[in-house]
């Protein structure tokens, strides 16, 4: 072992540049690995923290479906919950907004330093008679009804820190009179961090104790507010053996069927409401992908270094075999070299990773809710994975080294293990293609079922893809050389002959180099192809109107008529929009909820004939089931409805089947509709989100179209609040339309009293809006598309940091290989110099080689990216939250070109140093050193 250690260290010392470059590249990979593990663990921790803390010690929340201002959970709902044996604790809660300020006169001495008496924050005050605090008590005690007149409260840690107050201090409710209520603080609790508490979805507060800044008893709240308690939401603790999912779906129909329907909210629902669950869902997949890439990088960097070392030391190994080492010891030598390189990489990579994580934490403040940190588990994983990858990377070089015969030590030949130029045969081609198609087959041919894990498929498919590309690379190298070397030689002013065989002449080194480089490009292409393809389904297409007018009040017929006269070139379609629950779980959302598998949908009442009629229909789209004429007939006369294509596919229903909708405000009056047809509707999700069509819950299985009058009557909606607009000719000028609209509003003030009709004197959707000012909006559909694309582009480019880092790391490996490559060809370069070729020619030859290798890497990367990215969309579709829609392959050519240019830039840059090194060595030195090649 001592001998092996001596040899390892001697070799690393002798190749200092190579050792340093390999160490930097390995450290970079480890840094990347630690970074992604840290981000992953931090984010998961963030979600775990939220999951375990958003609801405190509660398991579920019951929240009213209604969006009326005075919405509340009825006693009837509480009775249903009480009747269940699964419910251990029921704590009704009353949430209100309350402005407070700290009382400067009674602030205790120890807290006075951070005291902020000038702050008057508006906080959520939650009244509850819960015996246990929802979150841990940090100081003092939990509220209890002491039957005294004093108002006692517990505040959150965030409020305590904000105002610099604590137990024993007091809060004042500001007001015009002197008898302002005083709240005595008796304790401080620790809810989730401030970025979560107070989080809102649209205009409403999350129904969760985590939003509470102040907690008090129901009796004190009654005194404080001067009204009877209203149950805003109910928090539940279930029995330990209760399956929350099963419980939820068992009781949901009963709660939804109440006069004042209620729904369950889990911690996950709230995360989903904050649009973060989807991120969490895909994070695991991303972490695996990036982790695999980082490990592959470390693997290839070490593999290439070890391979170079073996190729260069054949005679030395033969000698060692002849005089001292067994095959096993020689293999240990190679493995040891790999481990030492990884060890050096870890020594630099771990601190560098830590620094990167700290920098990222500061740079992306708020991106990861609880900050990021390097965890011991992350370091352990990095050590274990990089160590294992170095051992695996050493297998082939070690095997090659053990093939060296002791007798080779006395050979007079210039020894090489790569003397055979293996030609790509059709058999190889077939094997390569077979391996490459594994991933598409696992994604499209035999897609995973809902909820199936995709990790196994991803690993198997990616491994097949990588191996297939490895086999295919020699052919790609020859192809690139044949097709692109001549024009490149012409561009760089080189004789074509000098570039004709530069790559294939050292085929396996080129293959290793190109494969290493292609990792970053492959990941870059994969991310963008996957992302762009995925995001396309969220961008409204030609079916969608050019603009949506969104009103903050219900429009009466006269108002609609006035609008229609606004501009003769505009075509207006008033809409009745509701978000009813489907009586039956036709999309099987109980088992596998997704963005299109929900029990709630958005139903749009529209003039059937104008919308879908055969002559100049307002909604021009592709019919996948039924026909326009038949559908219009059914919509008009038989409560027919038109559903999206994904709805039909996922539900298994056909034209003529029935759907039952539960109106949110009159749940006992279930409405029956018949499917009259199905159309391809893309981008409906963002259309409804951006135009406030989803007011009751964030969930929606899709847009379902029915006849205007039927929807209006069935869901008791007095009039439209949304109007779709198209230009009859040309395009809508959104600014002009907005101005026209405001001018019209100014001319004809809205008679709000006229429109506010309904069971409680207010229409169901008006009552929580602000009376004082108009908030009419014109939402351009193109703007929605741009917004979606901009958001996606930001995240895709943000995710592209990792591929770019991978490119940088792999270019170090390329630099390493190029240094070895030019070193091995000193004799050839010496001959060229002695024949009269200038230094400049030598520099250009080496840089051209770098560019050619970069081009090979671009081709491999793009093949990998297209295959992996496209397959990724299928896997994501089949198993993730975003599943269910029809995805079409989208190749962002410009983005890929940018990636290729960056890749070529890295490749050319990596070749500069070797080029200069060889160019500035004298011809005689080149010849004399070159002659010594292969001499150990």
């Amino acid at each position, binding site marked *: 072992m001592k001998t092996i250690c001596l040899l390892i260290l*001697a070799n690393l010392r002798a190749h200092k540049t190579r050792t340093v470059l390999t160490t930097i590249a390995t450290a970079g990979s480890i840094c990347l690995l630690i970074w992604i593990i840290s981000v992953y663990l931090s984010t998961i921790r963030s979600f775990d923290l939220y999951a375990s803390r958003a609801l405190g010690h509660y398991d579920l929340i019951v929240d009213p479906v209604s969006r009326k201002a005075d919405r509340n959970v009825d006693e009837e709902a509480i009775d249903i919950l009480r009747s269940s044996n699964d419910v251990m604790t029921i704590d009704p809660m009353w949430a209100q907004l309350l402005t407070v300020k700290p009382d400067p006169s009674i602030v205790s001495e120890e807290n006075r330093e951070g005291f902020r008496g000038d702050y008057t924050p508006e906080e959520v005050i939650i009244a509850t008679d819960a015996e246990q605090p929802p979150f841990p008590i940090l100081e003092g005690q939990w509220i209890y009804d002491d039957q005294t007149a004093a108002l006692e409260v517990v505040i959150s840690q965030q409020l305590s820190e904000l105002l610099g107050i604590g137990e024993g201090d007091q809060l004042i409710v500001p007001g015009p009179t002197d008898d302002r209520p005083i709240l005595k603080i008796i304790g401080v609790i620790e809810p989730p961090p401030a970025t979560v508490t107070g989080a809102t979805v649209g205009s409403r507060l999350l129904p969760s104790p985590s939003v509470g800044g102040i907690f008090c008893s129901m009796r004190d709240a009654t005194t404080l507010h001067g009204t009877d308690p209203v149950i805003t939401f109910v928090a539940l603790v279930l029995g330990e053996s209760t399956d929350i999912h099963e419980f939820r779906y068992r009781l949901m129909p009963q709660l939804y069927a109440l006069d004042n329907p209620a729904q369950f909210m889990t911690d996950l629902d709230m995360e989903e409401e904050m649009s973060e669950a989807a991120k969490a869902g895909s994070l695991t997949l991303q972490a695996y992908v990036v982790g695999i890439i980082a490990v592959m990088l470390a693997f290839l960097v070490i593999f290439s270094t070890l391979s170079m070392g073996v190729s260069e030391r054949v005679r030395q190994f033969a000698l060692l075999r002849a*005089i001292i080492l067994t095959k096993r010891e020689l293999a240990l030598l190679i493995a040891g070299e790999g481990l030492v390189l990884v060890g050096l990489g870890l020594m630099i990579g771990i601190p560098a990773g830590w620094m990167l994580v700290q920098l990222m934490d500061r740079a992306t403040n708020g991106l990861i809710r609880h900050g990021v940190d390097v965890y011991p588990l992350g370091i352990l994983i990095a050590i274990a994975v990089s160590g294992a990858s170095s051992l695996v990377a050493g297998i082939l070089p070690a095997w090659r080294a053990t093939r060296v015969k002791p007798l080779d030590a006395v050979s007079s030949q210039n020894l090489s293990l790569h003397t055979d130029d293996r030609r790509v045969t059709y058999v190889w081609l077939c094997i390569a293609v077979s391996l490459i198609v594994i991933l598409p087959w696992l994604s499209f041919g035999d897609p995973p079922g809902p909820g199936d894990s995709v990790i196994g498929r991803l690993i198997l498919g990616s491994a097949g893809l990588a191996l297939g590309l490895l086999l295919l690379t020699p052919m790609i190298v020859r192809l690139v050389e044949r097709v692109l070397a001549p024009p490149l030689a012409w561009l760089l002013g080189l004789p074509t002959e000098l570039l004709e065989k530069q790559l294939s002449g050292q085929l396996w080194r080129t293959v290793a180099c190109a494969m290493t480089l292609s990792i970053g490009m492959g990941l870059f292409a994969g991310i963008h192809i996957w992302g762009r393809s995925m995001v396309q389904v969220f961008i409204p297409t030609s079916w969608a109107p050019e603009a949506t007018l969104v009103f903050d009040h219900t429009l009466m017929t006269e108002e609609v008529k006035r609008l229609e006269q606004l501009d003769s070139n505009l075509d207006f379609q008033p809409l009745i929009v509701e978000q009813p629950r489907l009586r039956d779980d036709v999309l099987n959302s109980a088992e596998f909820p997704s963005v299109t598998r929900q029990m709630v949908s958005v139903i749009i009442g529209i003039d059937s004939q104008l919308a879908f009629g055969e002559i100049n229909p307002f909604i021009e789209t592709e019919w996948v089931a039924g026909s326009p004429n038949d559908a219009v007939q059914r919509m008009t006369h038989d409560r027919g409805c038109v559903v999206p294509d994904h709805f039909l596919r996922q539900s298994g229903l056909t034209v003529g089947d029935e759907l039952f909708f539960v109106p949110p405000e009159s749940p006992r009056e279930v409405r029956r509709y018949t499917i009259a047809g199905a159309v391809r509707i893309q981008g409906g999700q963002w259309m409804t989100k951006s135009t406030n069509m989803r007011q009751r819950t964030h969930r929606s299985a899709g847009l379902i179209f029915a006849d205007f009058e039927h929807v209006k009557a069935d869901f008791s909606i007095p009039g439209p609040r949304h109007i779709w607009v198209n230009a009859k000719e040309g395009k809508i000028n959104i600014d002009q339309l907005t101005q026209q609209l405001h001018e019209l509003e100014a001319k004809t003030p809205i008679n709000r009293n006229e429109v506010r009709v309904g069971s409680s004197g207010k229409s169901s959707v008006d009552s929580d809006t602000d009376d004082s000012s108009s908030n009419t909006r014109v939402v351009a559909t193109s703007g929605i598309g741009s917004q979606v694309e901009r958001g996606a582009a930001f995240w895709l480019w943000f995710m592209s940091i990792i591929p770019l880092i991978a490119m940088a790391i792999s270019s170090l490996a390329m630099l390493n290989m190029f240094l070895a490559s030019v070193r091995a060809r000193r004799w050839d370069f010496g001959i060229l110099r002695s024949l009269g070729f200038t230094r400049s020619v030598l520099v250009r030859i080496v840089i051209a080689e770098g560019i050619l290798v970069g081009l090979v890497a671009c081709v491999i990367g793009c093949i990998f990216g297209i295959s992996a990215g496209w397959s990724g969309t299928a896997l994501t579709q089949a198993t993730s939250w975003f599943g269910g829609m029809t995805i079409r392959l989208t190749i962002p050519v410009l983005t890929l070109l940018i990636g290729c240019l960056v890749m070529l830039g890295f490749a050319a840059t990596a070749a500069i140093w070797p080029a200069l090194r060889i160019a500035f060595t004298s011809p005689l030195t080149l010849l004399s050193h070159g002659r010594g090649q292969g001499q*150990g």
Partner: protein
Amino acid sequence: MTHPPFEAIEVRKSFRQGDTTVQALRGVSLQTKPAEFLAIMGASGSGKSTLMHAMAGLTDIDSGLIRVGGQDLSELSDSKLTHFRRSHLGVVFQAFNLITTLSAEDNVRLPALGSSDLSDKVRVLFETLHLEDRRSHRPDALSGGEQQRVAIARALVTDPTLLLLDEPTGSLDSIAGQELCEILHTLSKQQNRNIVIVTHEPAVAHWADRVVVLKDGHLVGDFSTEGLDNAEILSQHYQSILQSNDSIAVAKP
């Protein structure tokens, strides 16, 4: 019972060269005496290097027997053979074959790393081989003769049963070659080393106690250098042996 340092009995070895089979050794039998300095001579292609490689266990033989210190090499697995070579055989090649990344001293220490009394032994070897001031030099900073002496020191550091040298002067100039031969002679006479040297140079063979001559895979001559006053006489004797066997070679199918 004392075993001879080296013993070859009816050793046969053939190679494939394209479609033809080359008989490199055709039943060679040879034995060395303790503390003997033996030279194996022969023209190119005579089989002398093959015999040397077989003696070092670097190549398998088709038939026959090779024993070093009584150990039949064919009984050893690849791993055991390596261990045996490390501890019982010192091998020196024509092309120096030092590990370029190690210093001269580390190269010498290499086969015996882990031995407790290595420092004294290495010091003595460097003194004996006149390399005291070259201990920390890397191979590329040494002359050819110095490199070869370092290779000999490395071969001797484990006190091998047999020191095998394959054309050790082939890459050296005449003065360096002469110095090397003197050293080998000293080692043989003063330290009683068993030395076998493969050479085609009479000037080198003249330093040996005994010379065996190989021709076309046959052992065709075996004579003592005692009484051969100089290399010229040895050369004439060697030539006469080769010529006298031409008829045999020609007569053979």
